[in-house]
């Protein structure tokens, strides 16, 4: 026991020590991570290396928002497994030529058949938000970026940040006319295509509910907004239950640039898209965030490509982490591949240079995979390049 009759200075010192160790300052420490050193950007060799760095730098709820999938996350896991069910068949060593990777996607030139997927709220990941992602993408050989409808920064404020091509992603609103003003704005600001997302009619992220229960008010703000209170007796969020095919017919005259339907996972729906004036099919299960126990995007890609028969380009995302994954998706018929979590990890981990580096890693890996399989042009990439063993 201390002698509490000691002088004032001594008492203050003891008090300070006691308070510092009290739960009052518990908030300063995040018990979810150890306190290891953050590696230098140059030390990271693959896209997968960025995730632990992003994890270390982000608050728990922001990391979770990027990481999680719908429901029990079966589809989230299957997205990655699916790439193990496709093996690349090595071809002749090739001509020794540098692989030619440049292409044009719906009129947008690209050095690689790779785009940045639309993902929400980049300011969660980095204070500079979407403008930083855009600068990083542009620095990585002008990779086209699809700006999310729920970006932290308005499209017009992102557009001046760099020079690369931008597309816009729309979550359509039920009063179809109310989409017009937004679509006019983004097209005037330079959107070269509009991606209409039509999955996620009733998705719930269980990890987000957890984080919400555990207090993260910031997430409550993020997820509470747009969905609408349930009127049905099954407690299903109402916001997107109204989706119907005629939406594309109604949106068509408002969109002067190519219109893409995102979230297609069946040949039936792909054919219906064609009937409704869609310019490209975007095969995606929203990174495992739409329907739990839905298929991986990769396993349904071939049947959708077969149904579309080359009439429109087929874009692809969900689960792509490596350049070889890009090559596999192209071999199964995708015209281009989009990356969602990859640039998010880059942004969260290192800001602009992180986005640039992580995209360049995937681009380089893609080129290496082309060379290793003896394909020197995109046109030469076809199904003979892969052996599939989907379950």
């Amino acid at each position: 026991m201390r002698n509490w009759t000691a002088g004032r200075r001594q008492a203050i010192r003891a008090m300070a020590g006691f308070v510092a160790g009290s739960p009052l300052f518990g908030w300063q420490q995040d018990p979810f991570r150890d306190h290891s050193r953050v590696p230098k950007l140059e030390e990271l060799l693959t896209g997968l290396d960025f995730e632990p760095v992003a994890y270390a730098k982000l608050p728990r709820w922001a990391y979770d928002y990027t990481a999680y999938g719908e429901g029990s996350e079966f589809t989230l896991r299957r997205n990655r497994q699916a790439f193990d069910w496709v093996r690349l068949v090595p071809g002749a060593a090739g001509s020794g030529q540098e692989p030619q990777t440049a292409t044009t996607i719906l009129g947008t030139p690209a050095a690689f058949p790779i785009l940045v997927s639309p993902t929400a709220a980049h300011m969660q990941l980095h204070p500079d938000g979407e403008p930083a992602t855009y600068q990083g993408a542009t620095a990585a050989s002008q990779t086209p970026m699809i700006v999310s409808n729920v970006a932290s920064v308005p499209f017009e404020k992102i557009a001046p940040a760099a020079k690369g091509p931008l597309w816009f992603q729309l979550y359509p609103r039920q009063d179809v006319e109310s989409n017009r003003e937004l679509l006019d704005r983004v097209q005037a600001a330079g959107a070269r295509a509009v991606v209409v997302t039509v999955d996620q009619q009733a998705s719930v992220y269980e990890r987000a509910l957890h984080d919400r229960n555990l207090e993260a008010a910031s997430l409550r703000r993020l997820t509470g907004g747009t969905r609408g209170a349930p009127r049905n007796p099954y407690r299903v969020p109402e916001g997107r239950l109204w989706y119907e095919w005629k939406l594309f017919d109604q949106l068509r005259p408002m969109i002067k640039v190519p219109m893409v339907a995102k979230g297609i996972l069946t040949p039936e729906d792909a054919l219906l898209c064609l009937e409704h004036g869609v310019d490209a099919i975007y095969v995606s299960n929203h990174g495992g965030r739409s329907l739990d126990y839905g298929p991986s995007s990769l396993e349904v890609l071939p049947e959708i490509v077969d149904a579309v028969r080359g009439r429109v380009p087929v874009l692809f995302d969900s689960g792509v982490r490596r350049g070889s994954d890009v090559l596999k998706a192209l071999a199964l018929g995708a015209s281009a591949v989009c990356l969602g979590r990859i640039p998010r990890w880059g942004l969260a981990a290192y800001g602009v240079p992180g986005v640039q580096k992580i995209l360049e890693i995937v681009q380089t890996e893609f080129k290496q995979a082309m060379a290793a399989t003896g394909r020197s042009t995109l046109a030469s990439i076809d199904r003979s390049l892969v052996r599939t063993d989907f379950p």
Partner: protein
Amino acid sequence: MRRREALFLAAAGPTIARSQQLAGEPPGRIPPAAEIINASEMEAIARRRLDSAAYTAIADTGADRAAFDRITLRPRLMVSATNLDLGANLFGQPLFAPILAGPAGGQNRFHPEGELAMARGASKAKAVLIVSERSSVPLEKIAAESPGFWYQVFPEAGTTRAKIDLAVKAGCKAVCLTAGAGGTLHWAAIEGMRKDLAVPLLLKGVMSPDDARAAADHGLQGIVVSSYRGVPVPGMASPIETLPAIAEAAGSRLAVLIDGGFRRGSDVLKAIALGARAVIVTRPALWGLAAYGAAGVQQVLELLQSELARDMAMCGKPNLAAIDRATVRLHRR
């Protein structure tokens, strides 16, 4: 008390301790029932509430889960689901959703109110409850809490029909006869139980198309595809795997129900797509009972209903009649 003493006390006091943010689920905390997000979480809370003997009786064995992982759903987009309807009808009885709470004996092992709380919770969730003949609470009391209940019996020479008649008198809407567990089942005996019975009789424990055909031939109104035979047999097929062939054999002659490892709304959707009229969930309801009594039963059943409704919406099936074989894809592994 002097000022500096008061400051020392305050720094370590509970007021300040509360300002610490909770990070993850602290060990042993029982959150409010509304914070439970899925059936598996309910199991974790049940585990905290129960002694090991009671918990072991209802622990999730995971036995039939792998089969569900070999079935994927096929999302169909752009079908309006603003008029979402999970309503079903079994033997003239309207169901709010095709999910029934299954039978289990001696539920006072899991909650002091036992079957009464189970009945109250199921009723609140608008779900039909199947009451075991080994209930720890008299049937009349359960009937008062859950009027549309069903009754489950084991076949025993001589006594079974008397039990069934008592249950019918108490108001049960259908009877499930559990095959296999302990006693031997003779079709002749089943006909005796069925004779002049005012409510439909279902055979529970059917795992082959032949049994389904025989059940129809002997005048039963329904079957429950179920692997419950008293002891689990490793390596046996799961009910969801045998369902398509059994549903085909049953045709329109029998109402086909199923149980065995249903933990998610997506599991229910798969069963409906493969020919079941409704699904029976037992362990999840018992986890809810053990965790929070009636409120837990209600919560877990409502979670399953909501999951099913969301999955139906995302598969473009706004009602049960719209769910077809093309809603699912079966995989080899």
